């Protein structure tokens, strides 16, 4: 399903973009609905789409010690699958944990768009960078044992 530019414009991912750029982005993006339990991609998969959550929840899991651990869940306005922007295989498995409406953008088309217009490219990368950096801080907080010992 194509995505109306007005819906896209609500996302912080698009907030840095000019209306023209936003429209260009809408052209390559699609809106999809997933039921709970749907798997968007698996750890180790080849690069594919980048997702933006409009509604619902996507949980990232990683394999470790013979089992699977949920490491992060993402909700409205958050980015899923950034590693594809770096042409990398998927670093985690993304499963829809609450029925979700997502914006799917093929990574190759998105990168092409960025190449074409460096201003668009900068805005998109800046947004992705901010997102990834937040996650890095979160991960560090977890390393610090956020809920530590309190008697």
């Amino acid at each position, binding site marked *: 399903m194509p995505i109306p530019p007005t819906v896209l414009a609500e996302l912080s991912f698009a907030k840095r973009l000019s209306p023209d750029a936003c429209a260009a982005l809408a052209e390559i993006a699609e809106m999809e609905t997933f039921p709970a339990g749907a798997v968007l991609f698996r750890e180790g998969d080849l690069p594919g789409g980048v997702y933006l959550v409009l509604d619902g*929840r996507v949980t990232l899991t990683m394999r470790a010690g013979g089992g699977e651990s949920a490491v992060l*869940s993402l909700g409205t306005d*958050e980015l899923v699958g950034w590693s594809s922007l770096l042409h990398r295989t998927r670093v985690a498995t993304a499963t829809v944990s609450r029925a979700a409406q997502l914006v799917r953008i093929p990574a190759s088309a998105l990168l092409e768009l960025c190449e074409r217009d460096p201003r668009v490219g900068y805005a998109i990368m800046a947004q992705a960078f901010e997102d990834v950096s937040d996650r890095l801080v*979160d991960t560090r*907080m977890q390393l610090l044992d*956020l*809920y530590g*010992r*309190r*008697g």
Partner: protein
Amino acid sequence: MRRIDRSQLEQLCHLAQRDGRTLIGPTVRDGAIALAPITTAADLPVGWTDVQAPGRYRLSRTQGQRAFDFVVGPNSAKEQFFKPREPLYRAERRADGRVGFVAIVPEPEKRALLGVRACDLAAIAVQDAVFVEGAMRDPRYASRRADTLVIAVHCTRAGSLCFCASMGTGPKVNSGADLALAEREHDLLIEALTPAGEALLAQLSSEEASGEDLRWLDESVESARASMGRHVDTRAVHERLFAQLEHPRWKEVADRCLSCGNCTSVCPTCFCSTTEDRSDLDGSTAERDRLWESCFSREHSELHGHAVRGSTEQRYRQWLTHKLGAWVSQFGASGCVGCGRCIAWCPAGIDLTEELAALSTSDARALMPVAAPCAEEGRDEAMVPSPARVLSVTRESSDVVTLALAIDEPRPFAPGQFYQLSIPGIGEAPISVSGRDGAGVEHTIRAVGSLTRALCELSPGSELGVRGPYGRGWPMRELAGAPVVVVAGGIGLAPLREALRQMLADPQQYPDVRLFYGARTPEDLLYAREMLGWTDRRGFQLSITVDRSSPTWRGNVGVVTRLLKRSTVPDAARAILCGPEVMMRFTIQALARLGVTHDRIWLTMERHMKCATGHCGRCQFGPYFVCKDGPVFRYDEVASLFGRDGI
């Protein structure tokens, strides 16, 4: 003003000992002038004086016959009232699980202090402010202090380490004594400052002092004032010191500082203490002592097994900023009276006045908030627990239980306050109230140390010791009428639960309550069933997240700040938080991004609250004692110090 002959000193000593008073006066012992029980004027250090320098104290013979021709020795009136070590109570744990506590109360003992100097009178006043005049009264100190006759001496010469003139505490005795003496070679001037002093003076053979005598006194005191060996600039010293928390001088002085604690021991105002439990071999009886402690020892800043102030640098900074800075906002007077003892008795010869000067080169001033006064009215606090019975035990998670306790004649508690829970022979710890269950007061406890483990192992019917409630709780009144954001991390939900319950019970006052709660795993979530029950309340929103989980968990995964980031909060929302310091730090940043300003955020501080009465100094945090000024603070009260190392 009267004049007495030197021979009257004997009579004065005699009179001061009437009614069974113990006379404490200066006397020569082991190379110094000590304060000790004396009986006659012959015990006084007649013909002795002291020569002091940084790290050095020597007695020296004078040619004269004066008894007070010295300045100050290593000890002060402090140890008369605030004992270096004294028993608090005996506790007993019987085989049937019952406990008993017997306070150990000192025998009333009347004292007369002879030869007290103006600086030490100021120090007594400072300690009175700590132990007697605050919201909590130490009955042991108070009883020893109550009936004390004080015979002071004006300083007519200053020592090389004296700076009472700078601190405004001397050299002249103005108040705090019953009698004031000024000594000359052959006679003494004497003045009664109280009716008790007058009564005593009336029994001495004295004559009216002449105008020349009075002139001599004024001139001598003035000359002492002018010849102080040390000087400090006290103007805005509080703000100036707190503006220099990162000054390289702290590191530099730490290279010289032995962190041995001598300065705090000889300081006439330092009041930090700790407790020591001694139990018998089977742990059935235990005795708790209180003893002098120092902010220079590691244990003093210990919090959950690590020291908040791990380095000497941080400890020296703590001492100086407290003594000359934070003290003022806590007690209305400086903690330094200018006696110079910390300079003389420092084995390394560190000179406080020199350090202060080096740290005061800049005019920068920190903005120091003043703590909200403790709401409690004055009451005796003997720090003796009373028995409480476990009504029920609810297991919340693998290592967390909630105990409902039946407390005899409980004082009303507010959400966010805490009790001191103890098990004889094992220890005592502050645990915040997590709710009320019928007649029981609930505490939710995570087993992390030996005491909390033992608490978690209690079964219904067994007993433990409790004292409390203590501290400042959540600002329920300020929260009323506004949207409230509650952010909890891990066991940090416990101190918030009763506040949540009260808010949910009163939607009129609290129409919009949003709880953001993060725990390590789904299994660590506290009060899960109760929280689910809350979700049908109108105006309540619940967001839960865990750090990690199995893939079957359908809820949020990630830190609690991520939940906040995704949300919006209504205008004018207020926030209350509880969790580890690191979590609160990031939560405050996230809240700020959502427009919740510092003056609308309240949090609980983590410091080890030991005595809970503001007496032991353990939970000192800048200008606050967390146990009595907190543990709940409005963030802007602590913002300048929060999250800083070594505070």
